[in-house]
């Protein structure tokens, strides 16, 4: 039975990871209300299992429960259907051989575009599959190592590498596609303005 002392200890150990937990849930769910539900459920689940937890790597433990809760909710609500498809077969342990970035051949304009900081990058990130968003968050925001990501997501380290690589490739493509669309719109507007001034 969990006592007041257990609760206080649990809070002391886990509440400092609440921001990370919330952001991970937000990256996976894309919706603040659902992210709050996920974190709430995950923290209660973690507390219920607290006496069985060996208290090593608290952050990793919390993030694992949060991501499991998030994916359970996604599975339940079948939200995967309207997202960029996630090629599970491509994430086998042997797939990392094929996931290099050597097919990156960009024009000078694209390079310039990629190098600039884009405040709307989230728009492109949100078009990725939840699995890609998760792995990008864990690597780039939480700065976890491949081994730590493998532990949190319960996949092999080789799969972490290949999934991360594919996530980056997909993001790069979405990012550049969006930039191209924006450039086309801007050019159309400019042409329209020029004609009207003539």
């Amino acid at each position, binding site marked *: *039975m*969990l*006592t*007041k*002392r*257990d*609760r206080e200890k*649990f*809070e002391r150990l886990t*509440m400092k990871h*609440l*921001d990370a*937990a*919330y*952001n991970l849930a*937000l990256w996976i769910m894309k919706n*603040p*209300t659902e992210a*709050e*539900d996920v*974190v*709430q*459920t995950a*923290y*209660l689940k973690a*507390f*219920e299992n607290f006496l069985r937890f060996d208290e090593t790597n608290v952050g990793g433990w919390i993030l694992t429960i949060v991501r499991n809760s998030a994916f359970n909710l996604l599975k339940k609500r079948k939200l995967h259907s309207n997202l960029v498809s996630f090629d599970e077969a491509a994430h086998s342990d042997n797939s990392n051989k094929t996931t*290099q*970035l*050597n097919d*990156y051949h*960009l024009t000078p304009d694209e*390079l310039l575009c*990629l*190098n600039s*900081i*884009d*405040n709307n*990058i*989230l728009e492109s*990130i949100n078009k990725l599959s939840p699995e890609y968003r998760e792995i*990008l968050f864990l*690597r*780039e*925001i939480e700065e976890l*190592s*491949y081994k730590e990501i493998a532990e949190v997501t319960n996949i092999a380290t080789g799969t972490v*590498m290949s999934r*991360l*690589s594919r996530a*980056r490739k997909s*993001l*790069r493509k979405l*990012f550049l596609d969006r930039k191209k669309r924006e450039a086309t719109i801007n050019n159309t507007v400019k042409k329209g303005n020029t004609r009207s001034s003539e």
Partner: protein
Amino acid sequence: MTCKNIESQLERYLDAELTFSDRREIDSHIENCTHCANQLNQLKAIQRNVRNVDFKKCPSSLKNSIRANLRDISNEDIPTNNSFQWLNFSAGLLFFIAAATWVTFQILTPPTKNIDLSLQLVDAHIRSIQVDHLLDIASSNKHTVKPWFTGRLDFSPLVTNSTSHSTKLLGGRMDYVNGRTMAALVYKIRKHLINVFVFNTNGIKSKTKTMTKKGYQLISRTTNGLSYWAVSDLNQKELKAFFDEYLQSLKHFAN
């Protein structure tokens, strides 16, 4: 090392997953190879952009709600061994008194005083969805639902129409929980069902209480001899907003 070999390691280089000697080898290659340097710059650009995304602060309402729920789950009345060791001697006596009180309490009070009422209401909520006994009277009109209870209960539950744009009254049913006959009013917010259980109590007026049981949110209030319990899988914030609105529309709460 060829460019192909270097390229295959660039991401691990970026993610600091290479040994020192491998890193040095890539460093020296990149200094003399614009192609590989270009590949690395692309990776860095993507990384820079992703890391530029705002890191949100967890809402304080969520933090407070989690703390409240944790307190609800833990048994705060149980003393810890260290701080209450001096009580060990009298533990037997206390246990005897408690047991005697409990037996007396069980004999003298009707079954309606069960402390696990919240859990039983959650079970009733789950049952109502699982066994297809959600509604005895299906109507979104309170003037249809409310009279249906007349003669079936020794009180008249207060029924509100949809409290807001997103809330819909589905109807009501009779339910029997923990030895009590009660009214269950069913509302819907998006895809979330809410059971509002209303029953007669001799209880003292109580303030609004929120709790989580088995992953479901509960919110309750007792007034004028009637107890109102809303149970749902909706998040606590929205359930509270619904419950507040529901109570607002009841005249005797507004006063």
